[in-house]
């Protein structure tokens, strides 16, 4: 009886929660649209000139001016902008003469693949290292981790990237050089998802797969190292906090083995705030690490945006900005969701 009563009460709260969530998301993205639209109008780049070039006649200029809808009032322009954005139409790139959405669909998977491998490396190493440092607080391990973290924090990524290329590629030939794949393998498979690791593996092109791995290893390890430095530091401080709690004493009193206290009791609690940390560093990597992508000639979002920015290709810049904003909102939602999964105290609260 009691449980059915509970369900009746739970249902509307779940629904209300979902609706509130949807409203937040819509509102955030709307705000994002306003910002990108206004930036597009405020920057001192004449969109008509960007299309017609500076030697066009006045009549051509006027014609394009009307074509772009710039004669209409601002709110009409904005509603047109939103209408198009919703259908995925961000206009054409002046530079590539292709729709922005196609350009991004080509550049984004490269960044997605690199960032995903990077964050996996960062988490896989960062969490255990952070736990280890917390358990041996003040000991040698802790100091070594601190120094490694400090280097990860302060050494410029392009410097480490170039150094990595020099040592591992030029000197020892352990990994492949810049780019995502060697030209000889480029036509060995069809890029369906744009994630080369996945594409080559699914099509059984193991030679190409190995080549892709060899290309991604160094930049991903580099991004992994940077996120590891941050994740390890945060893990350490969350774990120190948890290990000082009374429930840890309770577990000891019960006779629970030390490894289980650390990896099950304490880490399970530390995981709650850690999820947000990892999600946000992932979002940071997805923005496209401009420097890494430049050093490694990685045809990703960061490179695309920098290129567009340098050429005053506003449509491309704004489309990319919007995409990054949406990724941030999405990852925040995901981490909120995981948060409620991991922490029962948040779960039942409305």
């Amino acid at each position, binding site marked *: 009886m009691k449980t059915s009563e509970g369900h009746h009460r739970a249902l509307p709260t779940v629904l209300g929660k979902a609706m509130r969530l949807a409203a937040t998301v819509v509102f955030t993205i709307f705000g994002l649209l306003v910002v990108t639209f206004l930036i597009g109008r405020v920057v001192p780049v004449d969109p008509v000139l960007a299309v017609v070039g500076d030697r066009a006649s006045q009549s051509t200029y006027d014609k394009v001016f009307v074509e772009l809808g710039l004669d209409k009032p601002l709110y009409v322009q904005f509603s047109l902008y939103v209408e198009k954005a919703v259908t995925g139409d961000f206009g054409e790139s002046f530079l590539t003469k292709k729709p922005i959405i196609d350009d991004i669909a080509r550049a984004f998977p490269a960044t997605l693949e690199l960032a995903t491998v990077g964050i996996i490396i960062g988490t896989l190493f960062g969490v255990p290292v952070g736990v280890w440092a917390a358990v041996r607080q003040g000991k040698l391990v802790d100091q070594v981790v601190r120094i490694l973290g400090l280097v990860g924090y302060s050494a410029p990524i392009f410097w480490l990237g170039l150094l990595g290329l020099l040592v591992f590629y030029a000197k020892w030939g352990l990994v492949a050089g810049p780019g995502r794949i060697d030209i000889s393998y480029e036509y060995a498979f069809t890029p369906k998802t744009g994630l080369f690791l996945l594409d080559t593996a699914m099509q059984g092109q193991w030679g190409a797969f190995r080549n892709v791995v060899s290309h991604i290893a160094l930049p991903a390890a580099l991004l992994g190292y940077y996120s590891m430095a941050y994740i390890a530091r945060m893990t350490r401080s969350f774990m120190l906090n948890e290990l000082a709690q*009374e429930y840890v004493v309770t577990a000891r009193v*019960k*006779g*629970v083995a030390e490894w289980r206290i650390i990896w099950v009791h304490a880490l399970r609690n530390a995981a709650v705030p850690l999820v947000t940390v990892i999600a946000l560093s992932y979002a940071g990597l997805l923005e496209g690490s401009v420097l890494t992508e430049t050093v490694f000639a990685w045809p990703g979002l960061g490179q695309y945006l920098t290129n567009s920015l340098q050429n005053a290709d506003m449509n491309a810049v704004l489309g990319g900005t919007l995409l990054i904003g949406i990724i941030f909102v999405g990852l925040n939602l995901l981490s909120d969701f995981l948060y409620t999964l991991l*922490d029962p105290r948040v779960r039942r609260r409305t």
Partner: protein
Amino acid sequence: MKPLLSVENLRIAFPSRQGPVEVVRGVSFNLGRERLGIVGESGSGKSQTGRALLGLTPVSGTATADRLEFDGVDLRNATAKQWRSLRGARMSMVMQDPKFSLNPVMTIGKQLMEAVKLHGGKSEARDKSLAMLEAVQIRDPDRVMAAYPHELSGGMGQRAMIAMMLVTEPDLLIADEPTSALDVTVQIEVLRILDNLVTQRGMSLIFISHDLKLVSTFCDRVLVMYAGRVVEELDASRMSEASHPYTRGLLNCLPTITGDSRPLPVLARDDAWLE
């Protein structure tokens, strides 16, 4: 008969900027199958004494003793393995506030069954846990098993904690202010449950509290601690014969229901008690 636990000259020190500070200064006592109360104000070293018996002195502190023996095992240089076989199975501890002493992201059932499973009994873990929850007078044990700590009231949480600590049937239970965080109305109820279980199962109990009156009701013998030392040891039934001025002073401060003395009596401390 050999005592279950014997403590001789227990000292616990913590480092500070002015050099090490001794918070427990030479505590000695023997414990048989009885209920021993340790009373003292905060900072008197009573909780640290309790924790040292379980080898749980914080890492920054050092505990030394001339003798620290539990049922023939020398606790001073017990290995991690020996500690694990003692803790939970043979000695356990109920702590002050179930809000902090229960793991917030594990269900009560999981925490309770973990205690059973650790000391053999994987198959009957669930049945044993349910029976134990009934023994601490929880009416719907199935619901409590599935609940998370924050979903229980303080009294319920503390009963679950007691269940968790007694389910392995230890020989010695240390109760460190087990009711201080609870409402006055449920304090006595929880204490009665604790007292009944301890008596039924013939366990030894060390009951740590700042409440002299409470301790003398629930214990056979009382140690009064002041500034890291035992200043007086007496039978609970002979509380009125206390001779140490500190104990006398505390007893004098107890309000009586008939006489209203104004101004309220104040404990006058004497530096000589520190020695």
